């Protein structure tokens, strides 16, 4: 306990912008006049209540140390130990605490208080970082004015090339509050270096990627999926072919965190879409050591290596979601990770039937096929936008029929050279409802010998 806080007597915490605090200002003056008040702390205006000896707590340190949740709060100390506190105004309880029986004549008997400024969104973690024990393990880097954190982080090699958000203790604490795992819980070994990743290091990198705390459960689910040996993250990170991680999100979490499934779904403009997969990229770089030219051997790479995350369009109940098709219970949130080597938009303005559309889609899929590579097919994530889905739906087709038709149409004469093995073709639905487009996202190596998509439920 700070030595500034009185050891004995009554301590009152108020703020002017609280009707109950203004109501009890005469009581505070009465207690001070009678010598019963040891200290008054004001959270917003050190001149309130006027004419009294008020201590300035605009930095909220005392409010944090006293764990004030509501103002006014009246606390009694004896020998440096809190013996009792009253939250809000109650003539009876204030009188008992002050051992005076004629407080606040003319005031109502009781009046609830207002929220403490120390409880404002974002302040709890900031105050914890400033005045409390963070309990975090990471080494700290202290910058003095005028050092620019953005430049320092870049110089230290913490960035993927774009500016990163400074991972201050307050921001990291806020991120950690969004998960039930302990900060030192080990999530797994991050390739290529095979270094253990703790929840805390994941949170630091998620902050840097620009994630809001509410995104963190999705980041953790995506990490868990990426660490599944079937995903072969090590291969994706170190391959010369240049592969990135796509994260497709389903379920209620999409609306809760504001993920985009509509206009420009694979492009820019939405913070959740832009940052969730980027967190995995930064973790792979900062913890796994995957740096271009080092253990990341990408010959060319592609823009999607910055990380691709999007939500599936679940607005049409006739569309079975990707997560449900992969065994997740309806109504649950999930992520699916897919290793990919680039995207290509496919356009067909003449097809009017599902059968016709399958022909052009199949020819486009074949065009993505690596005919002289060991990765024939290589896995595909097909993102069907609104108008293509309308054509399929009006033809009475569903997900299963689309997948079967595309398998058949790409299997060569007599079905003897199938382009896709089981599970190598993922079909999803996203994008705006106008425009005769779909996007073909080219996989890396598919099947058990390559990188297989992995789905995980999001723990919320």
């Amino acid at each position, binding site marked *: 306990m700070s030595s500034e806080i009185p050891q004995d007597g009554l301590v009152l915490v108020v703020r002017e912008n609280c009707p109950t605090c203004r109501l009890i200002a005469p009581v505070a003056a009465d207690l001070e006049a009678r010598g019963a008040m040891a200290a008054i702390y004001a959270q917003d205006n050190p001149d309130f209540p006027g004419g009294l000896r008020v201590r300035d707590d605009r930095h909220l340190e005392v409010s944090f140390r006293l764990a004030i949740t509501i103002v006014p709060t009246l606390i009694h100390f004896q020998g440096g130990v809190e013996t009792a506190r009253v939250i809000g105004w109650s003539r009876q309880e204030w009188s008992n605490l002050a051992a005076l029986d004629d407080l606040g004549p003319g005031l109502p008997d009781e009046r609830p208080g207002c929220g403490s400024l120390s409880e404002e969104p974002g302040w709890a973690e900031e105050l914890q970082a400033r005045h409390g024990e963070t309990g975090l393990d990471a080494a*700290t880097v202290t910058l003095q004015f005028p050092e620019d954190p953005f430049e320092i982080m870049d110089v230290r090699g913490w960035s993927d090339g774009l500016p990163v958000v400074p991972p201050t203790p307050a921001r990291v604490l806020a991120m950690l509050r969004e998960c039930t795992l302990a900060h030192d819980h080990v999530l797994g070994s991050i390739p290529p270096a095979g*270094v253990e990743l703790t929840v805390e290091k994941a949170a630091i990198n998620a902050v840097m990627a620009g994630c809001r705390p509410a995104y963190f459960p999705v980041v953790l689910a995506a990490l868990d999926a990426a660490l599944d040996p079937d995903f072969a993250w090590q*291969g994706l990170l170190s391959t010369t072919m240049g592969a990135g991680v796509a994260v497709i999100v389903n379920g209620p979490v999409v609306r809760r965190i504001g993920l985009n499934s509509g206009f420009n779904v694979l492009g820019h403009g939405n913070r959740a879409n832009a940052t969730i997969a980027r967190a995995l990229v930064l973790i792979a770089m*900062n913890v796994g050591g995957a740096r271009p030219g080092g253990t990341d051997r990408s010959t060319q790479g592609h823009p999607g290596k910055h990380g691709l995350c999007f939500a599936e369009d679940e607005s049409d109940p006739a569309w079975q979601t990707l997560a449900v098709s992969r065994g997740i219970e309806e109504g649950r949130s999930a992520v699916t990770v897919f290793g990919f080597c680039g995207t290509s938009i496919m356009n067909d303005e003449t097809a009017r039937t599902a059968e016709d559309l399958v022909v052009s889609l199949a020819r486009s899929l074949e065009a993505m096929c690596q005919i002289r590579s060991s990765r024939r097919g290589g896995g595909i994530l097909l993102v069907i936008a609104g108008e293509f889905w309308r054509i399929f739906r009006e033809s009475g087709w569903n997900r299963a029929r689309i997948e079967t038709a595309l398998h058949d149409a790409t299997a060569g004469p007599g079905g003897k050279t199938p382009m896709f093995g089981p599970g190598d073709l993922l079909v999803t639905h996203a994008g705006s409802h106008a425009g005769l487009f779909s996007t073909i996202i080219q996989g890396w190596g598919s099947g*058990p010998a390559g990188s297989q998509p992995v789905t995980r439920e999001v723990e919320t």
Partner: protein
Amino acid sequence: MTTILLDPTAAHAAPARQRVAGHRSLEGLTVGLLDIGKRQGDVVLDHLERLLGERGIRTGRYAKPTFTKPAPSAVIDRVTAECDAVVEGLAD
């Protein structure tokens, strides 16, 4: 005014491994030829096998199931038990 940043990098480095000293000569040794599963990797290794055979050097052929994932420990154990040196065929 100070700003405190938390270090995002690994707290611990990957485990350091001692390098095995190189050989001055391959005479009397066994050289493992490890195919990682990439197309045409066998072309390189076949050539090496022939060249080494012409010099009377023993060779052994080994293979990873796929280049996309680390070698299974059984493969690594066999190579280390049976060979004095190893060549990996990347062929990229």
